[in-house]
């Protein structure tokens, strides 16, 4: 039987500042070693001062993962030497000496399977090591402390996963959940990192570290199961060890055996006094929790009769659901959902495109209303949407500029139809035997009018002209 457990590190990218100092939590835009202060580079004499907002975010995540939240939490020191760790200890949380982390004993159900959450802990991210130089001789390691002290939440699960697919599904759900809570932007490079623990029947537990993107986690876990199974088949024992994920070769390689495992000498961080989490405070959080993805989905289906697949897509992506919430009303909800899931997703499929997009919720509701009121065809709406995303101009401006106004004028349309009938004489002849050929002619009319023609009116006029009833 395969047992898989996960440890997921998620940066709280939505926080302004680092976990223990006022430096920016968003370190990505800085030149190396410029987003630093005495605290986050651990200068002698500096002391951590807790970012209270991180406690709020940690509480939110713990509640969303159905964890118990203790009345008193503390921080611990995890002691080990590494060049990216300014103090040579990490301030983190731990369950020992009667002190616990911010959340524990949670659970989350994926595809009918319950995954237990061991604990949720807040901790600081170390700096980053950058390796440069190609040959063995001139290899150098550079240290950038801009990231040091960035607030992280670590989610630790029990070994409840049975296969790599469950890992993927869980990661997708978790990432959507974190985004929906407004605590993190998982699409940012390095914002979500995961380690896996894999063991199979009769073997020791193997930890996989260094999986750069959580998309690779499924692959890494899959590789590891296969590797372990082939060892067992050949009668080779599976050692207790830590393996690194080699991103280039897509395999795991041995990093160190557990005998050499460090003793982290965990003890309470005296520089940060206990934090008391009043149950009343926690209750307040419960009441003000952002609506969960599942609840949004059900509401969209129930209230607006949006199809289940559309509701799934819409609810699980915060960018889309936020747009939807602002754009829709009782009348146009279905159309707004439709525009987002059929057209918009194609235009803003990357983070950069989302950032550059000039689209507002007003644009969306205008567009949906225009379709409903027949002032633009669904066909033209796609071009209009693309232009809005690009320029941010109002829908009316774009309709005029690109001449996307709906052709519902009978006279104008009749002239085009006349032309098409003349040009497509072969098709016109076939029409007696094959009535569906009329659709081909409708298409030709649409093409000539650049999609502006009202499709139902065109069909009606064509039928009249060709005397098919």
């Amino acid at each position, binding site marked *: 039987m395969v047992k898989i457990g996960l440890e997921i590190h998620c940066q709280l990218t939505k926080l302004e500042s680092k976990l223990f100092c006022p430096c920016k939590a968003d370190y990505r835009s800085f030149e190396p070693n410029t987003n630093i202060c*005495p605290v986050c*580079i*651990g*200068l*002698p*004499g*500096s*002391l*951590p*001062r*807790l970012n209270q907002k991180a406690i709020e975010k940690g509480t939110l995540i713990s509640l969303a993962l159905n964890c118990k939240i203790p009345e008193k939490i503390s921080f611990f*020191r995890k*002691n080990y*030497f590494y*060049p990216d760790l*300014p*103090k*040579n*200890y990490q301030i983190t949380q731990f369950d020992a*000496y009667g002190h616990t982390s911010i959340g524990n004993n949670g659970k989350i159900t994926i595809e009918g399977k319950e995954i237990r959450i061991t604990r949720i802990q807040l901790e600081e991210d170390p700096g980053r090591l950058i390796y440069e130089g190609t040959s063995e001789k001139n290899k150098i390691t550079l*240290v950038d402390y801009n990231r040091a002290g960035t607030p992280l939440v670590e989610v630790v699960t029990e070994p409840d996963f049975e296969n790599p697919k469950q890992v993927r599904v869980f990661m997708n759900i978790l990432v959507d959940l974190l985004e929906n809570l407004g605590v993190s932007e998982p699409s940012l490079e390095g914002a979500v990192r995961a380690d896996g623990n894999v063991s199979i029947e009769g073997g020791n537990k193997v930890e996989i570290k260094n999986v750069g993107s959580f998309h690779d986690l499924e692959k890494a876990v899959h590789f590891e199961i296969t590797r372990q199974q082939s060892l067992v088949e050949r009668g080779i024992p599976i050692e207790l060890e830590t393996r690194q994920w080699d991103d280039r070769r897509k395999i795991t390689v041995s990093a160190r055996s557990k005998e050499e495992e460090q*003793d982290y*000498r*965990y*003890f*309470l961080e*005296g*520089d*940060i*006094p206990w934090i008391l989490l009043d149950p009343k405070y926690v209750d307040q959080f419960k009441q003000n929790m952002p609506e969960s993805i599942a609840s949004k989905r059900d509401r969209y289906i129930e209230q607006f009769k949006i199809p289940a697949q559309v509701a799934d897509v819409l609810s699980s992506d915060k960018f889309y659901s936020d747009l939807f919430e602002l754009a829709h009303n009782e009348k146009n909800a279905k159309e707004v959902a439709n525009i987002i899931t059929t057209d918009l997703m194609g235009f803003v499929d990357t983070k950069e495109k989302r950032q550059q997009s000039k689209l507002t919720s007003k644009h969306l509701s205008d567009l949906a209303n225009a379709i409903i009121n027949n002032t633009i065809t669904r066909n033209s709406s796609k071009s209009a949407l693309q232009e809005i995303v690009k320029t941010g101009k109002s829908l009316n401006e774009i309709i005029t500029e690109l001449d996307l106004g709906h052709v519902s004028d009978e006279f104008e349309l009749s002239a085009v139809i006349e032309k098409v009938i003349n040009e497509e004489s072969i098709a016109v002849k076939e029409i007696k035997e094959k009535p569906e050929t009329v659709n081909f002619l409708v298409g030709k009319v649409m093409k000539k009018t650049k999609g502006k023609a009202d499709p139902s009116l065109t069909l009606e006029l064509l039928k009249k002209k060709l005397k098919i009833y």
Partner: protein
Amino acid sequence: MNLEISALKYLDEIKNENFTVEEFISKTIEHIKKIDGNLHAFLSINEKAIQQAKEIDRKIKSKEKIGKCMGMPLSIKDNICVKDTKTTCASKMLEDFISPYDATVIKNLKSEDAIIIGKTNLDEFAMGLTTEFSAFGPSKNPWNTDYVPGGSSGGSAVSVSALECIASLGSDTGGSVRNPASFCSTVGFKPTYGLISRYGLISYSNSIEQIGPLTRTVEDTAFLLNIIAGQDPMDNTTIDNKGENYLKNLDAGIDGKKIGVISEMTKNVDKEVSSATKNAIVQFEKLGAKIEEISLDMIDYSVASYYTITATEAGSNLARYDNLRYGYDFDLEGYEFNSYISKARKNFGPEVTRRMILGGFVPSAGHAGKYFLKALKVKNKLTAEINEAFTKVDLLISPTVPILPFKFGEKIDDPVALFLIDFNTVTANLTGKPAISVPFEISNGLPIGIQIHANTLQDKLVLQAAHALEKTTNLPGVSI
């Protein structure tokens, strides 16, 4: 102009224009240059002191707003960060470390126009009680230069008693302010844990240590507390003292107060120390206090608990000195990370090394239950015990140090004997209570101090009692 004046007297003299700040600072520096080659209180001197003095004189002259310290020269233990100044912790490891920021206490003092005259010697990273573990050589006791000045804030105590400054700030982890204060006949105060910001104090054992003043008089300690005590957003462990004015009602006396003599701390002490303690009890009784004996069972385990906890925290606090970010010249070529680290860390001195090794062991996975957790239990029980005692008495007294100052080299090779000298001082740190050492007698040319404890945040009561006791004495200054 006499250098032997208290801080409050200095302020009067400046206000009365009996001398200028520049005159006083110049004379102080002259004096330091004359005697510090021998005493070695200082590790570095502020080259800009005279310039700063001139600026304060100008402000006084032009009737600009002037800070409470009016240019008084203060020395600072070299484990407290002063901006753009070397802060070495008397260690090779930080030999060239120039702090880019001011500790909160320094910020407060500077904003009140104090002049930081120099940085004082200590046992490396404040671990020791003689200054013999300074990487740059020991300080000498001005009362008798064959004797240790106590430690770890030895340089601070020497600088105050030898008139090289008006007052000093030290740090007290297990008696490091009170011990040298007792050995050099100055006042030394360890406040309630959290009363003074530790931001900028280079951590040794952060859960129990505090910055504390060393001064000529109890009044001067109260004066400095008014400037440096109170909540600090830069240190989450600081507590709100509600803007307490420590000078106000300082001479309230102790008539009617109940004083407990800690029996464990008065056994096994030198006979001169024992006799001084008895004399102090007589004085307290004369002042109207009621004396009783108090026994604290857990005290016998306090030193063991103290060294276990401090080693654990030191092992972590000093881990950052890996010579990657600051330190000394060291060629990295040919070292793999682990061998590099072990090589780099050989630059710690013997006492720090000893405690690093202990600190790696006592909290480790296989041994924490036997050592570190037991030490924490002792700390908690001792705190409960002393809290219980303070339901019966207002103050607890003892000699500050069980023995008289001793000669250099006498105990340096016997770590356990050295550890036991902390017996009377570590309790205040383990329990977070305020405690002061007041100069009380000079026995054959060697100073003896009396220690007074009170309950949490009763710092003012400690000062009131100390002030009352101080007034019963008439001790000579050191002759230099």
